[in-house]
């Protein structure tokens, strides 16, 4: 369970550029919730996800994940409990390292990294199976440098890496926005599968209303650093794109 309690974040506080990005934000996610997150540009969606991930420390409030207090924890320690995929396909992987090296890095999230030699044959076999499940042919290119992959392939790989340790919370920030429609659909399909297979609690930011409606069991909308819509279950199923647009405009 994720709980954000009265979380505030102002960028450039005390200057003329001060910008309230999170305004007393409250949010509770139940285990297994798959929440799609919408809202106009600058509404605070990325800021909320980054606050959870620890990219910066919040000014006020508390961030609790399964009763662990993440509020003051440094970013790399929170990573133990989180999986993340970014909007920019370049962001989630190490381009000069091989596919299997990237997976092995992810598989050690939350573990002490010692002087053991890196990838064992059993591990390699496991990665082969995982990559095969993507159905992108990556299992035959395990020693290829990730920098040589397409954006869609990289996002799919990043998804695998994010899920490999079964995180308590998966954060997807417009992770298909940089992809062509066909690839985006494929990556979304993979996301759904990975979330379902691992029963991951998930937040997925998107600007695509159709995707926001079609995926997940809950939908929230941000506006000026607050959550202004929160619908779930049957109510969400009844929601239409027209309803959402109305909210956007009204």
């Amino acid at each position, binding site marked *: 369970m994720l709980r954000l309690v009265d979380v505030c974040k102002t960028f450039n506080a005390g200057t003329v550029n001060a910008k309230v990005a999170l305004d007393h934000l409250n949010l509770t996610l139940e285990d297994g919730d798959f929440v799609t997150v919408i809202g106009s540009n600058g509404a605070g969606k990325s800021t909320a996800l980054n606050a959870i991930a620890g990219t910066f420390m919040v000014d006020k409030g508390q961030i609790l994940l399964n009763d662990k207090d993440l509020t003051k924890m440094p970013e790399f320690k929170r990573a133990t409990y989180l999986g993340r995929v970014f909007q920019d396909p370049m962001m989630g992987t*190490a381009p000069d390292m091989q596919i299997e*090296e990237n997976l092995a*890095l992810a598989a050690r999230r939350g573990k002490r990294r010692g002087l053991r030699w890196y990838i064992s044959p059993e591990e390699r076999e496991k990665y082969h199976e995982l990559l095969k499940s993507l159905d992108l042919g990556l299992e035959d290119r395990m020693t290829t440098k990730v920098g040589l992959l397409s954006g869609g392939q990289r996002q799919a790989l990043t998804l695998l890496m994010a899920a490999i340790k079964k995180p308590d919370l998966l954060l997807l920030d417009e992770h298909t926005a940089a992809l062509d429609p066909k690839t985006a659909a494929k990556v979304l399909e993979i996301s759904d599968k990975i979330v379902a297979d691992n029963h991951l609690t998930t937040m997925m930011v998107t600007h695509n209303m159709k995707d926001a409606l079609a995926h997940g069991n809950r939908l929230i909308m941000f506006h000026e650093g607050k959550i202004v819509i929160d619908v779930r279950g049957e109510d969400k199923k009844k929601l239409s794109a027209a309803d959402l647009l109305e909210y956007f405009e009204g």
Partner: protein
Amino acid sequence: MNYLSVFLSSLPGACAQGLAWGIMALGVYITFRILNTSDLTVDGSLATGGAVCIALMTSGVNVYVAILAAMLSGILAGLITGLLHTKCGIPAILAGILTQLSLYSINLRIMGNRANLPISVDKYKLLVSQRYVRALNLTNPIPVFVVIIAVIITVLYWFFGTELGSGIRATGNNVRMAKAQGINTDRNKVLGFCMANGLVALAGALIAQYQGASDVNMGRGAIVIGLAAVIIGEVLFSKIFSNFSLKMLAVVIGAVIYYIVLQLVLTLGLNTNDLKLFSALIVAIFLAIPYFKGGRKDA
């Protein structure tokens, strides 16, 4: 023809110097290519390595212990730069410059407030000495350098293949990804700076022995020589060397080539006062080649 014979007779010396500086260049490779930053500590830590080694040896310490102490002093210098950078938020280049500058004073103190501390090959048991560079036996420094370099490359190859070492590579390659994968990127950067300067100080200890003195200015411009070696190695060998250990070998060969070319232009009459200008030009040219070819985005 006279030029040629002079040049040929100076070749062993150029090779030995190139190998010694190749060790230093491996340290630069760690920060410049693996951590993806520029560490200017090295100009100071090279001289620190030399100063510590020679100061200890002249006060009666065993050569191996002195070399080990020199490495430790380099590691300490790297630690300071690393902490200034990660804990105090000072940009890496500036953190390195600050450490380097303060090391100048410290190095003078280590050498008993002298700018130059000679050590006689007749009185002390040196590991390497210029005097024997043409000797056809085991006193020759060249095989000693080769063995040391082989050990270093083997250890680095192993280390950067471990979980910890891979985390350091990821830190340099994509710091946001590394953090998202739970890697302690600050600690890794500090570790990288420590390793790099440990190697540079080792090189300083060996270079000081080789030339028979440690000098407070021996590290001036060292970063440029290290970069030259890294870049010459990459420009010449990147197409054929893809294995990590071979890439490190390329760096060492780059240093040797650098010193051979240097020797060549000196033989042809370049004024030694113009050496630094010449070195900077070589580095500028080799840095620019990949850029003009439109190859690397990060060069």
